């Protein structure tokens, strides 16, 4: 029955078989899609509390003269996780308070003025970074009780959300950016 025709029909049969196999695989995958979705969607919920994946790079505190009652802390926060995070503040024994600040620019040309504004939080997108740098976003350290000098190290804690997350750091004090 398949005698001589077999050889001639062979390629198209193979293609048909291939398609059939692909359909099978697809149907199988679709039936499992529900399970996959369940696993993937629930992952962030499970990780939210203790899996905030933030690393801190190049932190430094500006060394300021004794007449100043405030200073600034700069760093790069890298979010290696898939959950967006927020920097909400910090604390240190050498000052009264720490607050996230943004730099504001208003007006154009010669009339342009710079200012700073306290914000509730600074966002660190999932798989993104938050850069705190001179002239830009920073953590303002207010009510200095001590004036650490260039080369000193200061214990400094930053607070992140979600999950009341804290990161304890030893931050070098410097007049210039620490790379």
């Amino acid at each position, binding site marked *: 029955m398949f005698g001589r025709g077999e050889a001639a029909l062979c390629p198209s049969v193979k293609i048909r078989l291939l398609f059939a196999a692909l359909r099978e695989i697809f149907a199988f995958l679709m039936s499992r899609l529900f399970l996959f979705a369940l696993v993937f969607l629930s992952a962030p919920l499970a990780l939210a509390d203790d899996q905030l994946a933030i690393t801190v790079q190049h932190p430094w505190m500006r060394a300021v003269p004794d007449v100043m009652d405030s200073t600034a802390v700069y760093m790069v926060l890298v979010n290696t996780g898939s959950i967006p995070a927020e920097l909400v503040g910090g604390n240190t024994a050498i000052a009264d308070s720490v607050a996230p600040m943004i730099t504001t620019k208003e007006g154009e040309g010669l009339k342009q003025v710079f200012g*700073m504004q306290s914000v509730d939080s600074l966002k660190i997108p999932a798989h993104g970074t938050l850069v705190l740098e001179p002239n830009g976003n920073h953590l303002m350290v207010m009510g200095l009780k001590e004036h650490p000098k260039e080369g000193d190290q200061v214990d400094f804690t930053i607070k992140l959300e979600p999950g009341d997350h804290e990161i304890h750091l030893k931050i070098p004090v410097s007049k210039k950016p620490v790379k």
Partner: protein
Amino acid sequence: MNVVSSKTAPAPSPSPKRPFFDWRVWTVAIVLLVAVVLSVLLGVKQQAQQGFFGMRMFPLKTAYDFKLNAQNGTEIRLDQLQGKVVLFLFGFTHCANICPTSLTNLADVYQALTPEERKQVQIVFISVDPNRDTSQTLEQYVTSFDPSFLGLTGPKSAIDQTVLAYGGSYEMVAGSTNQPNDYSVNHSAYTYLINPSGKFELLYGNEKLVDVQHMVADIRAVLRERLGSP
């Protein structure tokens, strides 16, 4: 027009006579023309960049002769600094980000000059917050960045006149507590360069000051300008 006429002409004509306005010739010509125009434009742009790093004022005008107070109430006028390149900026000592950044950068610029050049350069910080910044605090503040720096302030009217004369601006912004001394100051963050003849010559946005090499080149060019002028 010529392109159209060349299209109507039989291009792959078997005859050895080639049409004069061949489309290939035109393509090459247009490409060449575009290349020439682009290179000229880029060249012009580069030439403009080879000028000053700061924004140059045109025409140069005599700088407003501010009259403010240094430490112990000593009156300092801009005219007294004539013969020097003066770089000044507005700010206040409670400023934790912009002002220290600018002053640190300017200290680097100043230190990058030769000792001979430094004698001809004066960096001045003008506080727009005389309420909290006494001339003594100011002195301690600015000299912590570089001992040569001059901190000036004065009565509000003198400060306002100075800020206005240089086209700047500032405003007090109340803090979160209702304490009278809890406020911040939004202010112009430019650095103004006055040349040795007392003319306001160059303007720098605060983000430019970090580029020590270009800042130094500008200061040297301004110093040379004076030597070159009759």
